[in-house]
């Protein structure tokens, strides 16, 4: 998404007054159609990510009761003297929740970084320079 060519560097003096009026931030603040396109892209990437993680949660943790309903022998399965149903619900769910939370955090922050990169080069704001994780 950030593969746009870098902004052209003009050799002439910059027309500062005009540039300030057309930054993405000012488009966002003005609620202009262009600003809305930017907002929509951010919203859509974050929502798609959240729904994707939810889908993984449903397929792993969420399908367990259905699995027990459809596969009755799983309910009484015993390995090394321990009931597998107890381990699946009471222990195995938690690492899945932690892993999903961490994976989401990384990707959500990257989405915001992408959005900032999209917006900041045009604003000339001091926070446009640093790359990568904060």
């Amino acid at each position, binding site marked *: 998404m950030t593969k746009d060519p870098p902004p052209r560097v003009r050799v002439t003096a910059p027309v500062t007054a005009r540039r300030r009026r057309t930054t993405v931030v000012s488009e*966002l*603040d003005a609620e202009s159609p262009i600003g809305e396109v930017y907002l929509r892209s951010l919203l859509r990437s974050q929502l798609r990510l*959240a729904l994707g993680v939810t889908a993984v949660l449903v397929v792993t943790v*969420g399908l367990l009761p259905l699995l027990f309903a459809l596969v009755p022998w799983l309910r009484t399965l015993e390995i090394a003297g*321990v009931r597998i149903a107890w381990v699946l619900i009471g222990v195995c*769910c938690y690492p899945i929740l*932690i892993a999903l939370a961490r994976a989401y955090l990384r990707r959500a922050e990257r989405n915001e970084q992408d959005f900032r990169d999209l917006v900041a080069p045009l604003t000339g*704001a001091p926070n446009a320079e640093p790359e990568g994780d904060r």
Partner: protein
Amino acid sequence: MSGAAWALLAVGAVVALTLAVGVFGLRVSRTTSDFYVASRTVTPMVNAAAISGEYLSAASFLGVAGLILARGVDVLWYPVGWTAGYLILLLFVAAPLRRSRAYTLPDFAEFRLESSLARGVASGLVVIIAALYLIPQFRGAGLTLHLVTGAPTWVGSGLVAAVVVIGVAAGGMRSITLGQAVQYWVKLVALAVPLAFLAISARGGSSTVWHSLDRVGDAAWLEPLQGPYALYLTYSLILATFLGTMGLPHVVVRFYTNRDGAAARRTTVNVVILLSLFYLLPPAYGVLGRHLTGAATSPDTALLSMPGAAFGGTLADLLTAVLAAGAFAAFLSTSSGLVLSLAGVLSQDVMGRRLAPVASFRVAAVGGALITLALTWLSTGLAVAHAVELAFAVSASTFCPLLLLGIWWRGLTAAGAIAGLVTGGLTSGVAVVCAMAGYTPTGLIGALLSQPAMVTVPLTFAVMIGVSLATSATVPTHVIRTMIRLHTPESVAVDRSGFRTRVPES
């Protein structure tokens, strides 16, 4: 009786610790902003411990172990759901809610919907959910003190109410933020140490325990999906806990103490980790308890009677005292958070501006706690775990749709949100009223009333979306501006002025 003396000593230590932190907080909190949100100087790790400490209530500390002991493996879904609720909150709510700069759910409703009527409806629901969640904390305190010392049950509930009101009214949020973070570790240690002793005493390891359970005819207890409508009940519980967490008033308030949206996310990830660690312990108590005491004990006090069943003598007294102290830490921390958010809503939306903000906050804290205490003494026999369960169902059927649609769908109108909140509140409220009146029918109706979320949550979503589409001409004027502020990271310098939050800035 030396057992009672040990227990009193341990409970007294927890109460003294809580009061000491409260008095220390009084010396540092000067401005109104300190009172409400600790001036937002709390780091993600401290804040995560505070959220977890506040969240682990009577139901988590005493209720889950007892319920597992009584009902078996299906109850394991409670702690899983209470943890997964924070994952859902992280995915959809954490950062935007912090960026909305709303301090309470009514603040969010007013900010997003630009309607003071929506604010009023949300305020009413916050009071209902907070009271429904507070009653079992007070009742649990009464039962615990009664069991370990023989004191009448009103002593324990009155003690917790008094300590909480002193802490909240004197120190405000900063004192209880520090206090809550400490309480998480107090609770974890108080649950882990007796468990270690009990596990050692159950010589022969886990396979011996499982086989002894098999022998005493507990095969049904060991299997998931027991009883009629088990699949419906399990999925309805999952829905209520996964979606209900985000709408609990004492949870939302905590997010304001994060520095920004990114910090709110990091805090939530830490909360998922801390809760996962804690919730490994109660199921172990449930299994060992079934092994030690059988199915006969009452769920709400089963945990406290386990050391006595395993050892006897001074060791049992000491371990019971440790568990009682941990239980009081649970009652105190959860009640503090609930009284704080109750006082926040009462002082802002009910009492108006007749008093200075700090005085009004103190009066609201005392009043809110006293009224709930009276309700606890009046309402009869609502089991601790079931009252908490219903609070989650009400929250999932009201604030969850409001937050999800309000944050992600610009088409939500004030009329749609209000219609949905009223529908969800009334339909899930039927279950609450039936439970409080002791009406528990069998069959499908009974299943629906004990776990209403599977019906009421989709219904609320449908009503909110349907009415919003029908009134799409009345979409709030500044909705695009609101969406920009909810979703753009703080590092992008969009105009964030003009928020109508009622929390005074320092």
